[in-house]
Structures are given as C-alpha cells and as structure tokens.
C-alpha cells in the first residue's frame, strides 16, 4: 500500500511547504539530508569501468569505454573525454522515447564540466603518440529509475565508473602502437561530486525526490572537488535565488560533498 497521502483543499505544494516550514520533508528527511546511497562498481564487466548508483529509489548506471582516436586539433597532446547521458523512457512514465532532449544534454554537460574543471581524468596522460593517437574516454550514463535528483546520481555513477576503470596498457613501437593484454588504471586524479538543491517556496532542500521536484521553483547544483573547491555550478528552472541563499548552499555543498566522496574512495 502506498504511504497515506494527506488530502488538502489546495495543491500538494502547500502540503510540502507547510511540512518544510516545520523542518520536515514528505519522506521524513531533514532539509540537508541525502537519501540512502548505494554504489556498485564493475556491474558490466566488459566495459572498461562501470557503476550502478542507487540514491533512494533513483537508479542510474554509467559505463566507461576507452577508444583509440585522433586528438582534437586544439589539444594535440591530450586525450579526450566525452560524456553522454540519456533519460530513457524505461526509467519513468514522464520520459518520452526519441533523441536526446534539452534535459539529457544539460545533464551530460554538467557532469562533463564538473569532471573537466576538477581535472578528474588526467587527459595529458592519455596521449599515446602526441599529435597522432590518444585515448578517447567515453562515459555513457543511463537513468534506470527516476525518483528525483538524476544530476547527483549521474555524477556519482560517472565518477565511480571512471575511478575504478581500467584501460589497456599501450606500447609505442616505432611507427605503430601495440595494445597489450595488461590493464592499467584510468588516470583519475580527483573525485568531484555534485550536490543539488531544490528551492520550494522559501525553503531549500538537498537531494530532492521526484515529488519535491514536481513542486520546486528552482534548482541549483554545485560541483565540489577533492580540495573542497567549487568546480562547477548550474542553476536550473524558472525561479530565483538570493545571494545569501546561494552562498549558504555552496557552503553546505562543500560539507556534504565529503560524505559522498568517502563512499567513492572506498570503492578501490
């Protein structure tokens, strides 16, 4: 049976807001509390790296694949990092089939930016023959069950998959490259995580569940690196934040990011 839902003369948003004013959320969490987090790595053994993240009931899977390719012209001595996230209809009745929409793209780019700014994947170490052959690291992220906060769940899946990924060792011989059977760790030098907040009325809560996302006015995500620096920010939706709110959120994000990072570090 579902949890009893209170019937009120007005919309659900008012219920959520009146609970929030008393410091409670509909799933009994504190305002700055994350849902239970579970991370499993190597779930797709044939991928170079993979992770399945459960954040409350939200489930996301990420896979890492290293592919040999040419470097981009503006960075001849570096490998490449490509992040692709998809909100597939399997995960929710509200996702429609079809090519990636603006939400899929925003999610991909926020995860990509966070990894890049934190210099998580050391692209310089991924140049095999400078100017000619480099590793392209593909991180593909798929939502499997949507119960809110796909951003943080996707970020955790991506960094967990990358952190535990192993790519083939490569030997440069004369004019050619030999891909050996041995594997080496994907060079990951930082573990950035994101912390997302939802603003509902005047209250700000962390890690919104699906019901909270339905009534939120705006959303803000902070990417925090291992040193506690902010490496990415993304505000979303139509509402607004005051300066005070944003600074408090950033500060709280730095605190909360430590617990999330601990879980990732323990994976190796």
């Amino acid at each position, binding site marked *: 049976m579902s949890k009893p839902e209170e019937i009120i003369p007005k919309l659900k948003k008012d219920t959520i807001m009146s609970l929030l004013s008393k410091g409670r959320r509909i799933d009994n969490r504190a305002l700055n509390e994350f849902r239970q987090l579970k991370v499993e790595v190597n779930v*797709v*053994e044939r991928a170079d790296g993979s992770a399945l993240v459960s954040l409350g009931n939200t489930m996301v899977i990420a896979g890492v*694949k290293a592919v040999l390719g040419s470097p981009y012209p503006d960075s001849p001595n570096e490998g490449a990092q490509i992040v692709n996230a998809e909100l597939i209809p399997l995960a929710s009745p509200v996702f429609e089939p079809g090519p990636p929409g603006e939400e899929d793209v925003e999610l991909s780019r926020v995860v990509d930016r966070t990894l890049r700014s934190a210099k998580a994947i050391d692209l310089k170490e991924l140049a095999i023959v400078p100017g000619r052959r480099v590793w392209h690291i593909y991180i593909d992220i798929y939502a499997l069950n949507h119960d809110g906060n796909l951003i943080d769940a996707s970020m955790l899946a991506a960094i967990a998959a990358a952190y535990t990924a192993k790519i083939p060792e490569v030997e440069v011989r004369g004019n050619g490259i030999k891909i050996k059977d041995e594997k080496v760790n994907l060079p990951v030098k930082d573990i950035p995580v994101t912390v997302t907040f939802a603003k509902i009325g005047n209250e700000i809560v962390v890690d919104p569940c699906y019901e909270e996302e339905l009534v939120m006015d705006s959303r803000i995500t902070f990417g925090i690196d291992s040193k506690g620096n902010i490496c990415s920010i993304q505000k979303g939706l139509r509402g607004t934040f005051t300066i005070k709110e944003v600074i408090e959120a950033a500060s709280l994000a730095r605190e909360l990011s430590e617990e999330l990072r601990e879980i990732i570090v323990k994976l190796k």
Partner: protein
Amino acid sequence: MILEDGRRVDGRRPDELRPTTIEVGILKNADGSALIRQGKNKIIVAVYGPRELHPRHLALPDRAIIRCRYHMVPFSVPERKSPAPTRREIELSKVIREALEPAVILSSFPRTTIDVFIEVLQADGGTRTASITAASVALADAGIPMRDLVTAVAVGKVDGTLVLDLNHVEDQYGDGDMPVAMMPSLGQITLLQADGNFTLEEFKRGLELAMQGIRRLYEIQKRALKEKYSSLALELRKGRS
C-alpha cells in the same frame, strides 16, 4: 577451431545453455520489470502499461498496441557503440514485438498501449532471444493477461555441429544462427529467423534442440515469477478463513 573435444570455446557441451538467472520487479516506476543474466548477457526490461496512448490517433478501437524499443547501451559491446539507434536495433525492436504480440490478450485493453523497453547493458550473443525471455516475464509481472509466456533461444551451427544458445564468438565465426521464440505450453512459434546455411535435416534437429533449451528456460522464467510472490501466496493460503 571452435569445437575441441566436443566442447565449445566456453567449455559447454553442444546442448548446454549458458547459466541463466532472472530477477523480477527490480524497477519501481515500471508496471513490470525483469533483469536477465545469461552467460555474459545482462539485459533489463521495463513494461509500462496498458496506458493511455499519445497521439490518440495511433490507438486501435478494439485492442491495445504493443510498442517495443530494443536498445544497446554504448558500453555493452567491446567497441563502443554510438547511442543512436542502428538499423539492427530497429529491426530487432520489430521482431521482438512480433514475438510477444501473439501471447498478449490485446483485446482486453482497447485504445491503450503496452510499452516494452529493453536495454542491453552487456551483450554476448543471443540478446534478442534473451530480451524476449525477459520481456515476457516483465509483461506477466505487470499483470497483463497472456495466453502463455514467451521463451526464446538461439541455435547455431559451429564446425558442422548444431549448438544451443550461441554466444557472440560462435555467432560471428560459426556457420549459422537461428533464433527461435515459442509459447511453450501452446507449442506455438512466435519468432523464427536464420542466417548462414542449414540443410533441412539440420533445420529440423535445430528446432528440436531449440525446444529443449526453451523448456529449460521456461522453468527458469516460472521460478523467477513465483519467487517474487511465494511468501504472499503462503500467507494467503494460511490466512484463508
């Protein structure tokens, strides 16, 4: 050589299935769901429906329609695959749908759609048959009335020998691949395809071999579905007063 000492590359005998497990109901939003592991294959299926169909003009007045999307995630295969649907995925979506349709009592829900979403997380040959096997479990989990479950397996020919449940290597380097899907209780075939070449005799024996595999997989499907509800059923039997 694929076949040595009568054993295949992965050590199986010609009539041996890969180890197979099915988990039911792992996705909370979907009305029905199943995860199948068959050898290295890992495939997740979600069923949504019957539900309203948009745009409405696609709906049929006297029955439900089934929409099926078979998709492989980019990291499911050794060489990363582009996320965009390939022609193979489009064809497989169609044949999988047609393999499931005969089993579903579509007339129970006119003007609705039953959506089947298949994501291959890891592929090692025989993904279309494993998808069908998992999808029919997900449909039953969703409470959709069916004439029978649908069970599927691929039979192939390797070094002149017929083998059951092809893996990827055997499919690529063998002499034939024949996926078969059936409604086992009714004895009706709902999917049959082939490539390579088979004599008539090989074809007949291949079908027999497929049916053996299907019978075993049918038991695995049934066990998985019953397990989900066995404690509830036990309580109901004891509590009947």
